[in-house]
């Protein structure tokens, strides 16, 4: 019998439960089938609870991950044996499952993406699932967040997330989504979908407009972690994956400086650059370098290039705006969206003056979608102010403030509006 407290809690990584939990769910779903995803999640949860009920008395086991794996497998085996149809109808399959469930397993390295987790990602981000379903499922199964935490990130109730998860699992079952990495022919397109969803996840965390701040940072961290894992896995380490990793790192480096201690929005030109996360910037620059192979330039490459220009500039004044404009010109060809055109107008104004910026902004095709966003009016206001029309600028700031979604934004914009009073 081991005595309590033989191992100190610091020997166990803070995220052991989450990492191991997610790995185990993927591993169990891989062997039991996606139709048993709920069972996989339930037994893993139960295994974590059992650890909590045992370890404090007995001491933390020599190999905590192996302990959790064994506990979850035993619980799964018990549950499957209770299913009456199990042994009758699916004798062959179940024999294989039973072999696996009763077998000792070799441990994957902690910072490696196991093949099962990779497959799990492809299930979560399957194109037949809605974006909301994809994100909720990935956060639950691959990132180990609770429905309450996911709800806090998206400003949705815990019950609504729980319901969404149930429906998603049901859909996976009904559609019989395979627990597999897509075949070579489908892989590029499917990987695009996974990267797109991860970028969306990152942006959910990155945008300052909604949700709980700590949870949002968690979303950014998880998006980066998963992209990083994909960027080193042989099947998914494509240039676009590395470019996306670069883009996320370079944006996340500036995450903390975008909001002041008092909760106000700080624009890029006023941020304290010494507070930017140098480690993240370095990882981003290295990833961007590693992404520069092959003959395909993705939008992630260009956006990461733009972010790199900002991160590497010592000040707003020394920022290489012509390079940024050049990158936006290329990006506009790949992604001809109103948002890209709007951001390009800012770079254009820095290179060729506010008059050209304003002209470009006001001639964006299909800009009615932009006109509903505060950012469009804020950018327009800043151009007009620079052109020396305070009254018109004030009206635009006011419009922007009306459209702002969070208090910090609104206060910032109202402050801008007041600056141009009188």
């Amino acid at each position, binding site marked *: 019998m081991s005595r309590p*407290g033989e191992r100190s809690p610091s020997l166990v990584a803070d995220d*052991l439960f989450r990492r191991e939990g997610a790995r185990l769910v993927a591993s169990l779903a891989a062997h039991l089938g996606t139709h048993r995803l709920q069972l996989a999640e339930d037994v893993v949860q139960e295994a974590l609870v059992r650890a*909590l009920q045992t370890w404090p008395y007995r001491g933390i086991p020599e190999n905590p991950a192996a302990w959790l794996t064994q506990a979850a497998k035993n619980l799964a085996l018990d549950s499957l044996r209770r299913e009456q149809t199990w042994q009758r109808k699916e004798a062959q399959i179940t024999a294989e499952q039973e072999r696996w469930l009763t077998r000792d397993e070799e441990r994957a390295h902690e910072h490696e993406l196991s093949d099962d987790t990779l497959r799990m990602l492809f299930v979560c981000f399957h194109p037949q699932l809605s974006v909301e379903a994809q994100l909720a499922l990935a956060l639950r199964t691959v990132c180990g967040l609770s429905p309450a935490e996911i709800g806090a990130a998206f400003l949705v109730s815990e019950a609504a997330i729980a319901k969404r998860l149930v429906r998603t699992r049901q859909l996976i079952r009904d559609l019989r989504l395979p627990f597999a990495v897509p075949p070579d022919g489908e892989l590029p397109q499917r990987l695009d979908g996974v990267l797109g969803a991860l970028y969306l996840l990152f942006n959910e965390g990155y945008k300052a407009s909604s949700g709980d701040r700590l949870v949002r940072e968690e979303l950014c961290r998880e998006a980066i972690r998963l992209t990083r894992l994909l960027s080193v896995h042989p099947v998914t380490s494509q240039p676009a994956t590395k470019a996306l990793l670069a883009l996320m790192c370079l944006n996340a480096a500036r995450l903390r400086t975008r909001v002041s201690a008092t909760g106000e929005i700080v624009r890029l030109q006023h941020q304290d650059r010494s507070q930017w996360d140098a480690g993240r910037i370095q990882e981003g620059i290295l990833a961007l370098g590693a992404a520069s192979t092959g003959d395909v330039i993705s939008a992630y490459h260009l956006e990461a290039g733009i972010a790199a220009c900002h991160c590497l500039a010592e000040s707003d004044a020394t920022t290489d705006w012509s390079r940024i404009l050049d990158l936006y010109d290329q990006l506009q060809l790949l992604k001809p969206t109103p948002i890209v055109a709007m951001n390009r107008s800012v770079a254009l104004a820095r290179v060729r003056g506010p008059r050209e910026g304003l002209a470009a902004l006001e001639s964006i095709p299909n800009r009615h979608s932009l006109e509903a966003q505060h950012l469009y009016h804020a950018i327009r206001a800043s151009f007009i102010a620079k052109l020396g029309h305070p009254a018109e600028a004030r009206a635009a700031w006011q419009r922007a403030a009306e459209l702002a979604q969070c208090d910090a934004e609104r206060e910032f914009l109202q402050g801008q509006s007041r600056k141009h009073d009188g």
Partner: protein
Amino acid sequence: MNPNTQQTTGEHLLLIRGTHWNSSLSPAELQRVMTDFYGWVEDLRSKGILRGAQPLMEEGKLVSGPQSLVTDGIFAESKEAIAGYFLLSVASTDEAVKLAQACPILAHGAQVEVRPIADLCRPMADVKAAQS
């Protein structure tokens, strides 16, 4: 009957009651509870007063009556089921209570029963007192 015939041994047993954990806690939250709970145990250990500890299985049998009737008990269903124990070499009940109050799983609905360990069980102590 003389109530003073039972002596304490200078030890206390902390019985942890409550085996039901909120199943909607996320892995990160469960780990936080674990870290806190484990930290509490570490503290007992570093003070040199932890004599032993064991968790109990939720399943068990209840044997009762002159017929030695065996039932399954209601351990798993009961909110007050004993989840495990910690044996502490602490003489003062006040001190043991203080330690129990610091147990972080109280926040999650668990209860801690604090019982001094006796040198003899009550009937035996009574017999002994009658003999002397």
